[in-house]
């Protein structure tokens, strides 16, 4: 990863501040954050994972599909920098995935990530007070060291992601965290169910179905989670999505 651009960084913080003012959709917010953090450097992609109260990590958002699969791979194999950053509670900064040190540390993940076209991965815990509630992975397709100041910037953005989980930021109750996280994890399931329903209705791929749902949400200025919920409970009320051939 090359040095973070100050101008791009400022834009990210403006957009984050904008999003946090109103009631917002956590998944959409994390998706936006993943896209923007990826945009900070020319060759970076980003994935975000959140943990449930059983301390199991779940995939939440990624800036692209390859990164999503790399995150899912780490979850399945329980091997990789994101898993380590989560359990260790500290950033894992790696410069070269092809180096022996990386292969020794992550025997499954390192070769898999290299095959997928990546050369470096850095992982940052999402910290909330004493808790580690998830992890943000920063993937690069060139060998790249991350300078101290860049580490701090990306860690700050990871902490912003953690804070965003607490939509009601003034509330002190620790229980809110569990309530929000479980709600967000379930919202992700709803979105996947909606993708399946639209894919089946129109005979298209689940990825194309997702584009259709997202496009509709944007055009009608509705939240992605709300549209997905309606798709699987009352599809007929969304004629634009329900009618075959309506794309």
């Amino acid at each position, binding site marked *: 990863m090359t040095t973070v651009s100050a101008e791009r960084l400022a834009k990210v913080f403006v957009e984050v501040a904008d999003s946090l003012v109103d009631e917002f959709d956590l998944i959409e917010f994390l998706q936006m954050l993943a896209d923007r953090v990826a945009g900070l450097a020319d060759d970076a992609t980003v994935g975000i994972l959140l943990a449930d109260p059983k301390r199991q990590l779940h995939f939440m958002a990624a800036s692209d599909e390859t990164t999503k699969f790399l995150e899912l791979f780490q979850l399945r194999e329980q091997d990789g920098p994101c898993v380590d950053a989560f359990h260790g509670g500290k950033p894992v900064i790696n410069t070269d995935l092809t180096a022996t040190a990386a292969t020794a540390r992550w025997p499954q993940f390192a070769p898999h990530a290299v095959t997928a076209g990546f050369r470096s991965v850095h992982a940052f815990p999402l910290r909330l007070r004493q808790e580690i509630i998830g992890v943000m992975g920063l993937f690069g397709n060139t060998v790249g060291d991350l300078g101290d100041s860049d580490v701090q910037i990306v860690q700050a953005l990871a902490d912003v992601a953690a804070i965003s989980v607490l939509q009601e930021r003034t509330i002190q109750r620790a229980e809110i965290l*569990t309530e929000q996280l479980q709600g967000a994890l379930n919202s992700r399931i709803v979105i996947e169910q909606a993708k399946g329903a639209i894919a089946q209705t129109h005979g298209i791929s689940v990825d194309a179905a997702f584009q259709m749902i997202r496009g509709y949400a944007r055009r009608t200025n509705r939240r992605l989670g709300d549209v997905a919920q309606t798709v699987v409970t009352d599809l007929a009320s969304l004629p634009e999505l329900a009618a075959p051939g309506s794309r």
Partner: protein
Amino acid sequence: MDHEANGARPGRGAVSRLQVLCADATRKLSAAGVGVSVMAADGVHGMAAASDPATERIEELQFTFGEGPCVDAFASRRPVLITDLDHEAMLRWPAYTPAVHEAGIRAVFAFPLQVGAARLGVLDVFRTHAGPLSRDELGQAITISERAVTTLLDGQDQAHGERDIDDAIDQGAPLWQAQGMVMVMLGVTLAEALVRLRAHAYTTDRHLSEVAADIVAGRLHLKRDHS
């Protein structure tokens, strides 16, 4: 398609299994009692099972008053964890709070029983002392809620027995996508689609994740019921 919960209409076998589950949860969570309510999509209360008759009466209270953590957990699709039925709870549920307080309950933890948009009901943990569930207890409560969901989904067909079609690990996106696909394929509610997917896995003696992968890949097509 607005009756999401139609897929899960538990029979007597499911009720007794839920009672065992509630009694087990009561011990594991140091609770006074644990109850499960099955609800229709519009929040109408269907059936309750509890660890003991006293808890069942407490579980019924929220439906008597039409308010409470359970009602809110179902509507908001997320847990409602009330560590202390104090002044704040009084303001939130003015009729329900004094009634459970009278029964000696000081904390209520309500967990929705759901898989995405397929909502089946709520599991309630009641305690006689105020204070939070520990992280370990929270994790246990969520695991127990997941077991309650599979009991509700499988409960109406006793033939399934105890064979485990679920993988230990998170099955993730393909399973959930397959649920949405089967809903459209069969023209049923989402909850019914979950039941049918599981039934197919049982009858063909396969793992749910394999069946889901076949459906998403277009290799498997479930047929509509014409009965």
